């Protein structure tokens, strides 16, 4: 039983590695690595847009937590146009960076940690958008306790995502799958 388990695991890993080698040898992936500007402009766009994605969340969550209480809460949604545009830029540039070094990200647990943190934080944003951010009762009253907890959790998740993003550059197991052969 144990032997079959080992064989199956090794087989799956070899298939994954083969797939990653195929991915990094596609012309697009090669271009992302070898054309200098494509890679570093993706990095720049990713950083700036991430600053705005987290920034709008900082402002909204601080407001929910009671900083700047005289700002009508429902009006904070008017900053979300910036958030959505930045989120698109972050996602596209993130996919491009992943395309340049697919094995580097996809074999690193920190990458999945970052992905889960971002998705969880966006889940909280969706819940808040359906709740107090649309409810004019909280424009000049303190936000409900549950919303405050969610706002605090969102701030922690974004800090975790940023930290994971920075650590991605230092924790990878491999740069390229083809180097493993």
């Amino acid at each position, binding site marked *: 039983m144990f032997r079959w388990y080992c064989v199956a695991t090794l087989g799956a890993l070899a298939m994954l590695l083969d797939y990653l080698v195929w991915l990094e040898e596609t012309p697009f992936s090669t271009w992302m690595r070898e054309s200098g500007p494509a890679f*570093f402009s993706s*990095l*720049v766009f990713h*950083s*700036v847009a*991430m*600053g*705005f994605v*987290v*920034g*709008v*969340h*900082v*402002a909204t969550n*601080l*407001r929910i937590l009671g*900083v*700047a*209480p*005289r*700002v*009508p809460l429902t*009006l*904070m949604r*008017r*900053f979300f*146009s*910036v958030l959505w545009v930045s989120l698109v830029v972050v996602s596209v540039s993130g996919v491009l960076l992943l395309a340049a070094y697919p094995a580097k990200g996809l074999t690193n647990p920190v990458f999945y940690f970052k992905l889960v943190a971002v998705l969880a934080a966006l889940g909280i944003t969706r819940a808040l958008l359906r709740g107090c951010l649309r409810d004019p009762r909280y424009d000049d009253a303190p936000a409900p306790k549950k919303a405050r907890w969610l706002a605090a959790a969102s701030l922690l998740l*974004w*800090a975790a995502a*940023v*930290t994971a*993003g*920075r*650590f991605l*550059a*230092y924790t990878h197991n491999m740069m390229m799958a083809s180097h493993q052969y």
Partner: protein
Amino acid sequence: MDTLLAFGQRSGIYDFMHSAWGWPTVESLHFTGLCLLIGTVGVFDLRMLGLARGIPMHALHKLVPWGVGGYLLNVTTGVMFVVSAPDQYLFNPAFQVKLSLMAIAGLNVLFFYRFVFGPVRAAGANAVPASARTAAAVSLTCWVGVIVCGRLITYYRPPYHWCFWC
């Protein structure tokens, strides 16, 4: 440069930064501070540029102390980078441009609080004076430029780079 390095080594910052997770930890704090700055000062700038009309300026300005906190965090962590590898920063064109943009942003802050903040406060939730829009545009441009230059520092590390003034 030697003074900076000596300070880094004497204070133990140098050793911490070059320990296993020192550098990425401080980088994470540096990016978190940046997010605080964009989320407060940047959001206030966007409001002055005409986004989110209806939010009273003085009410939104209550977020700014958090941005100042982020700024202080970033000055601290920034100094930690520089004293741990001064030659990589002082001769780096991306770093030089970054500091220049910070100086412009600093002058803009002085100009804003001396001449513009009063009228902006008085404007409440209404349209803001043109001088406020200018100050907001300068601020936002400088801080975005600072992020771009910060990200590019690694691409212009001496002695591998070339630029027209160095």
